[in-house]
């Protein structure tokens, strides 16, 4: 019975997708109420089922093998078998809660946000439901192929949703970029999967875990496997060097950015590492690489976020940066801390994105922070929620972000292989994080300028991003309904209290709750195994580290206040010349341009040339030459055809003589 419920929970969003997909095919826009019921309802029921299952199958879930349900056979060839079978264990139930929970909130939010997009309303919800469906496969599948199905499925939804406004060229390009970048990662992931299959002879988690439980494997083998898998994670979770798609992905509607590109899909890489903990734990060198990639990603994207002016771009780079933190945690073996940060990040980043969506919606699709300011007066609740999220992300004590981030920094510090450097990277990122997020807050909600006034002026000058004809007469802010503010409030509450599941060791003198939980559920108790990687840490050092990170959080807040509130600075317009470093940061260190110059353009050129030269000029031409030679011979042979009959008779006789010679020649 519960098995059927689990399957139903996973496939319900798919039914929602089908229903909404069919509705979207209708000529006239479908009833929004109906679409919302299908869209939100399916995810809501699915969420409720997960809550129910969590309590009903409590013991099974926390056990090693978890609670599993078999749906039907998928691939079964030779020794390879992969089924549509699901595994609800401690790790996946955690993810399922986040996916369906936050997913449901964002669905509700979307009913308000997308209200104006009448012709595309059903299509939007169809995609969102499909996303939830794919994401649930990613986290709940009991084998790597099924994870990969979800992995690529969410990639597809991401592609479709980024390019949701497909008539806009930049959205279409961004979607394509996201898909292809992800594919590069996927290629690595596939190879990792194959290596794992070759090693363990199976792609089912249970069998993989069993293999690692029974055998000890050479670290060098596991290093390669872990690195290959990590390439996949790089793509999906936007790490250096494959992070470039995520900022562009902001071309999609804001709820999408919140759901896919902040809370759930991009954390798939982190989840995958936790899922395959035995592999990564046996691969210390690869883990170090992961930690450093995470650290550098965090720093680099935080640097870029400093100067961005598009509110969503700031948040996008912030997401990349926070993902960097998570990978840092996974790399140093602090799986509990990484998953913890994954959760808190999901809360506050979803809040930030949805909040920014609300701002954008209120300002008639204005995304440029230079044209905002002083919104506090108009939307107090929203501003407060934004402050909550900002405080959470910046690491000011008491809110969720503080606990998770601090735990990561502490674990990084104690990491044996270059832990100090990692800590430094994370520490610098923390300063920058605090600065850019408060910069965002001040620019948007405070400063002396008035967004409403700016908007009205801008509107009369034909300024701004607004391309929707029905907004042509700007009259104040668009009111925000309950279905927009409701989810924000819930997320605000979560952002505040979400961190208390992991109170630090130095306060409680116990293993933090969530870490203990993950120690228990990850079948091989990774934190314990990874302990050898860590040095012992004194209580006083821990306090020092914590105080330092609290200090930098306030430092960032103060600096942002100083520049943007006190001095009332507004970031320069695009055309203004900037100082060198600001120029670098504003232009994202020219990474996109470099990729285009050294990778994309040469490849395209090689493709063009190999078509024009190898295919047309060499292969095809040489075949044509064969034909031409035949024709040439023919043009000489043609002269034999004189049309004079005796000549033909002559040929006949000659032929007879030759044949006779061959046949009778021996007789002479």
């Amino acid at each position, binding site marked *: 019975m519960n098995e059927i419920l689990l399957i139903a929970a996973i496939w319900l969003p798919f039914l929602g997708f089908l229903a909404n997909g069919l509705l979207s095919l209708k000529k006239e826009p479908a009833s929004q109420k109906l679409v919302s019921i299908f869209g939100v309802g399916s995810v809501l029921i699915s969420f409720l089922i997960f809550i129910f299952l969590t309590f009903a199958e409590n013991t099974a879930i926390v056990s090693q093998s978890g609670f599993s349900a078999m749906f039907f056979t998928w691939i079964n060839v030779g020794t390879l078998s992969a089924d549509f079978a699901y595994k609800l264990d401690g790790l996946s139930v955690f993810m399922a809660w986040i996916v369906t929970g936050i997913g449901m909130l964002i669905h509700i939010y979307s009913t308000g946000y997308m209200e104006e997009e009448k012709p595309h309303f059903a299509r939007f919800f169809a995609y969102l439901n499909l996303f939830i469906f794919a994401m649930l496969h990613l986290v709940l599948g009991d084998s790597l192929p099924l994870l990969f199905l979800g992995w690529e499925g969410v990639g597809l939804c991401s592609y479709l949703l980024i390019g949701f406004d497909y008539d806009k060229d930049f959205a279409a390009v961004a979607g394509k970029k996201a898909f292809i970048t992800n594919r590069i990662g996927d290629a690595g992931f596939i190879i990792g999967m194959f290596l794992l299959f070759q090693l363990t002879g199976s792609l089912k988690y249970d069998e993989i875990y069993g293999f690692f439980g029974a055998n000890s494997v050479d670290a060098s083998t596991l290093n390669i496997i872990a690195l290959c898998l990590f390439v996949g994670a790089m793509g999906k979770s936007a790490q250096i060097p494959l992070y470039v798609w995520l900022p562009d992905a902001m071309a999609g509607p804001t709820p999408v950015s919140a759901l896919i590109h902040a809370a759930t899909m991009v954390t798939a890489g982190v989840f995958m590492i936790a899922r395959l903990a035995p592999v990564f734990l046996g691969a210390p060198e690869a883990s170090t690489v992961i930690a450093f990639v995470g650290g550098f990603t965090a720093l680099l994207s935080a640097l870029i976020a400093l100067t961005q002016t598009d509110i969503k771009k700031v948040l996008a780079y912030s997401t990349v940066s926070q993902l960097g933190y998570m990978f840092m945690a996974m790399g140093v073996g602090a799986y509990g801390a990484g998953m913890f940060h994954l959760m808190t990040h999901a809360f506050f980043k979803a809040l930030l994105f949805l909040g920014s969506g609300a701002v954008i919606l209120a300002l008639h699709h204005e995304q440029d922070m230079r044209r905002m300011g002083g919104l506090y007066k108009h939307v107090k609740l929203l501003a407060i929620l934004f402050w909550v999220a900002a405080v959470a992300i910046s690491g000011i004590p008491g809110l969720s972000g503080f606990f998770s981030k601090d735990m990561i920094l502490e674990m990084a510090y104690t990491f044996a292989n270059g832990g100090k450097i990692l800590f430094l990277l994370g520490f610098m990122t923390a300063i920058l994080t605090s600065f850019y997020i408060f910069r965002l807050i001040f620019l948007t909600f405070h400063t002396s300028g008035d967004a409403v006034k700016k908007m009205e002026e801008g509107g009369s000058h034909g300024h701004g991003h607004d391309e929707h004809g029905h907004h042509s007469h700007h009259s104040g802010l668009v009111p925000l309904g309950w279905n927009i503010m409701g989810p924000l409030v819930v997320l605000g509450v979560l952002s505040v209290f979400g961190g208390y599941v992991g109170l630090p060791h130095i306060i409680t003198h116990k293993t933090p709750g969530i870490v203990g939980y993950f120690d228990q559920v990850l079948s091989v108790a990774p934190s314990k195994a990874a302990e050898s990687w860590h040095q012992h840490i004194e209580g006083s050092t821990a306090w020092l580290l914590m105080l330092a990170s609290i200090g930098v959080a306030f430092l960032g807040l103060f600096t942002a206040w100083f520049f943007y509130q006190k001095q009332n600075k507004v970031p320069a317009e695009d055309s203004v010349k900037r100082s060198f470093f600001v120029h670098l940061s504003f232009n994202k260190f020219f990474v996109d341009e470099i990729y285009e110059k050294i990778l994309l353009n040469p490849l395209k050129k090689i493709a063009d040339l190999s078509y024009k030269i190898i295919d047309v000029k060499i292969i095809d031409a040489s075949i044509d030459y064969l034909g031409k030679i035949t024709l040439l011979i023919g043009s000489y042979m043609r002269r034999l*055809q*004189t*049309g*004079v*009959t*005796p000549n*033909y*008779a*002559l040929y006949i*006789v000659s032929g007879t003589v030759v044949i006779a010679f061959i046949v009778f020649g021996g007789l002479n």
Partner: protein
Amino acid sequence: MNGAEIPVSYVIVLTLLLFSIGMLGVLTRKNIIVIFMSVEIMLNSVNLLFVAFSRFWNDLSGEMAVFFVMAIAAAEAAIGLALVISLHRKFHTVDITEIKELKN
């Protein structure tokens, strides 16, 4: 008393010579009618061979073949000469080198 005995090889050589002469005529002459005559020579030389071997093996099949060849030759001559007339009517010549319908 059993009559003369003529070696088969003599007949073969004779046939061969006649055939070659006919062939020479076909290849060198330009008048269609003469070519036709040369063909008749070739045809008849082969008939001779049939008869010779028929006698040699004492088997009448060879002579039967000659009988049929003659019948066919009669028909062939009729058709062939009709063609010559028709050709002459069309091209106003019986010079074979003038008629180049096989080309183009």
